[in-house]
């Protein structure tokens, strides 16, 4: 017995090394479980607060760019107000085509609310990228909400603390966005498996469809994360391979993730209702 203890004592460093590596491995493997826990992510109060402070300084360097963006967006929205007024005067114009993607959800009743937020931490060059926002539960943000800019889809909220939110970037290998081919509404899924922050791939487009370079991919609106018709990207490569049952499609992501400053969190007002109805069907 004492010999056993002697051996354990002799190799104690190695044993502790193995133990610590196992702990780390467990953390990595169970990543998805821990993602929910706020304390281990950048939305915890201390880390979020530090990122908020640094981004408070940093944001001044982007003011010109941000102002220009807002100006463009304002112009777009003004145009839509004009068009909407025309619609109400002249009923023959089909309403849906005149609305910007951002407000498609509003065509009948207001289905989405948008919470503006500032990006205080962002990464682009890893295989699992995350974004931290400076708003949290106190501002009405909940897990699973969508994030977008006027250019298109940015990501989805992962975990929320009172004042911060950590989110999956679209550039995350586990992200999948329910989407459609704009020209004929064919359903597909956009995934980021390219390791290139400007490109994503589109899965599950059946071979009988015609797909050309330049076609637009938008969100489908089938889940209550994003409104329908939010831009995802434009097709740059479309390839048919005999061995596959689906097209191999690559898109140029419409959002420039390296210049992400202000975003909208899309809050579906009917999410609870829709989810409970759909889960009732399953039973």
């Amino acid at each position, binding site marked *: 017995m004492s010999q056993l203890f002697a051996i354990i004592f002799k190799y104690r460093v190695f044993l*502790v090394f193995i133990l610590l*590596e196992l702990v*780390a491995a467990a953390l*990595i*493997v169970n*990543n998805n479980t821990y993602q929910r826990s706020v304390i281990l992510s950048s939305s915890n109060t201390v880390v979020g607060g530090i990122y908020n402070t640094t981004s408070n300084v940093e944001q001044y360097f982007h003011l010109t760019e941000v102002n220009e963006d807002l100006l463009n967006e304002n112009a777009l929205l003004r145009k839509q107000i004009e068009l909407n007024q025309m619609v109400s005067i002249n009923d023959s114009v089909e309403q849906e085509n005149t609305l910007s993607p951002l407000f498609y959800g509003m065509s009948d009743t207001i289905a989405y609310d948008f919470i503006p937020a500032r990006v205080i931490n962002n990464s682009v*060059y890893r*295989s699992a990228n*995350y974004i931290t926002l400076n708003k949290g539960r106190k501002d009405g943000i909940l897990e699973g909400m969508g994030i977008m800019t006027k250019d298109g889809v940015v990501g989805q909220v992962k975990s929320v603390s009172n004042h911060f939110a950590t989110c999956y970037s679209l550039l995350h290998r586990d992200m999948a966005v329910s989407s459609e081919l704009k020209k004929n509404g064919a359903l597909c899924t956009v995934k980021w498996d390219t*390791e290139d922050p400007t490109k994503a791939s589109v899965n599950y487009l059946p071979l009988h469809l015609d797909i050309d370079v330049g076609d637009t991919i938008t969100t489908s609106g089938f889940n209550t994360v994003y409104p329908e018709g939010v831009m995802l990207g434009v097709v740059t490569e479309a390839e048919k391979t005999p061995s596959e049952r689906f097209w191999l499609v690559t898109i140029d992501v419409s959002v420039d993730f390296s210049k992400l400053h202000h975003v909208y969190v899309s809050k579906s007002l009917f999410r609870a209702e829709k989810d409970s109805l759909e889960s009732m069907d399953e039973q």
Partner: protein
Amino acid sequence: MGREIWLKQAGLFLIYLFVQVLFFRNLTFFDGNVMVFPYVAFLVLLPFGAMNMSILLVAFCMGFVVDIFYDSIGIHTASCVFLAFTRTQIMKWTAPTGGYELSEIPTINQMGFGTFLVFVIPQILLHHITLFMIEAGNMSFMPKAILRGVLSTFATLVIVLAIQYLFYGNVGRRRL
């Protein structure tokens, strides 16, 4: 180990950590393929006399905190613990004939340029390659991960050497 040394190391821990997450986190080259992690220098340059066990635990803590900032829970932790373990082996190779002065910390000044590189490069290299390989998480990205690890090692090494020349001063004279 005197109390002063521990206080100094605790201060260094915080400095390396904050400089890493606030500054070097934003520094990437070649479309993000090359990143710098000079915070590992804290672990590499712990005093020679630090006990192996405490190095492992300190490495675990450092990796864990960096992981929280990087939203990459577990990845830096695993790499840092691995670094800490290999450090004890590498110290055996580079030990001078009389053994280390246990109260000293590894500096170019103290070890000489060549020995310092032999001491530092394998540790950083192992850490970076482990890091990128775990992060890639997919066999098809492994060659790229190794390349990224090697290139990032050079980038980190440049910064570690710069820190040596800036803060552990007057290297040339001692060596001659």
